């Protein structure tokens, strides 16, 4: 339901663009693959179809998807754009991580050491 997937005090079309980008980066939607129709996505996320149209055109403006007349909307096959999207998502997640760690009073050293430790521990468990 809507209440679970979105923060309703922020524009939904942008949060939906983030979710769709997430699917593309994770490979759930592959290069050149057709996106679900506006209606299908609207039903899945419980949002207005106009919101989905806005999301798709926003993603098209960023070059992440392409609309082919009468056929639908497709993930771009331009790998450079997808790499850039992936890089942007990485930055976004790092920024969020750092902001939250800073809010808890951790220094840059604490963060990098903590990350390093966690990754090593996780690597030894796998």
């Amino acid at each position, binding site marked *: *339901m*809507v*209440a679970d997937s*979105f923060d*309703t*005090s*922020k*524009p*939904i*079309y942008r949060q939906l663009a983030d979710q769709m980008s997430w699917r593309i980066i994770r490979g759930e939607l592959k290069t050149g693959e057709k996106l679900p129709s506006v*209606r299908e996505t*609207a*039903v899945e*996320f*419980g*949002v*207005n*179809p*106009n*919101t989905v149209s*806005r999301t798709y055109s926003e993603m098209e403006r960023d070059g992440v998807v392409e609309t082919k007349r009468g056929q639908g909307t497709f993930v771009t096959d331009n790998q450079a754009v997808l790499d850039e999207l992936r890089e942007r998502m990485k930055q976004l997640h790092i920024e969020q991580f750092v902001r939250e760690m800073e809010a808890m009073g951790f220094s840059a050293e604490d963060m990098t050491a903590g990350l390093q430790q966690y990754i090593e521990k996780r690597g030894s468990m796998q």
Partner: protein
Amino acid sequence: MISVNQVSKRYGTKTALQDVSIDLPPGGITGLVGENGSGKSTLLKTLAGLVRPSRGSVQIDGTRVTRRIASKVAYLSELDAYYSFYTVGDMVNFQASQFRDFNREKAQEMLAFMNLDPSVKLKTLSKGNRGRVKIVLTLSRDAPVILMDEPLSGLDPMVRESIVKSLISFIDVDKQTVIITTHEIKEMEALFDRVIAIKGGRILDVADTEDIRDRQGLSVVEWMTQHYSLPS
């Protein structure tokens, strides 16, 4: 598409609507939100031609609204009135006989979507399933205007969710202009293109929902609470 010009409605000494003016473009889903007794239902009935304004006028698609506007307007009442001997299928047939824009194919599709058996008598249905039947009857009309009075009211969460999904699936937001009154703002706000806040029979504000989130950083619930707390 819908134009309300300085409409007031009084019942005896009680004022239900006070100098209401609204202009809605064609298409999209509008939420009409406000507390109990704010005038939501009266305004919706005025648009449906079921309530005559004491002053002012209402036009839909260039036609002055009277009871005959029903040919252009599909109205979902908050009341639950039906013939107890009717089956779901009888009700669909009755609705089809009343409205030329009734789309039987869509009705079949919606009944299947909602898991409703046409041969079952309405009186044996649960309240939730009767709520679903009402949605089917209303949305099966290819009407340019759809007005729904509290479509989720009194229904349990699962039914509410399936109704919200059916609205998204079966409303054509490009061709149909939809107005929905609701208390369940949180559950419906992602459906609304715009919202109208009403209090004490007066319009407080009309706003694009994504603008509210983008420019004010508020959810529709917060936006309405803010408007309601201002002195009127």
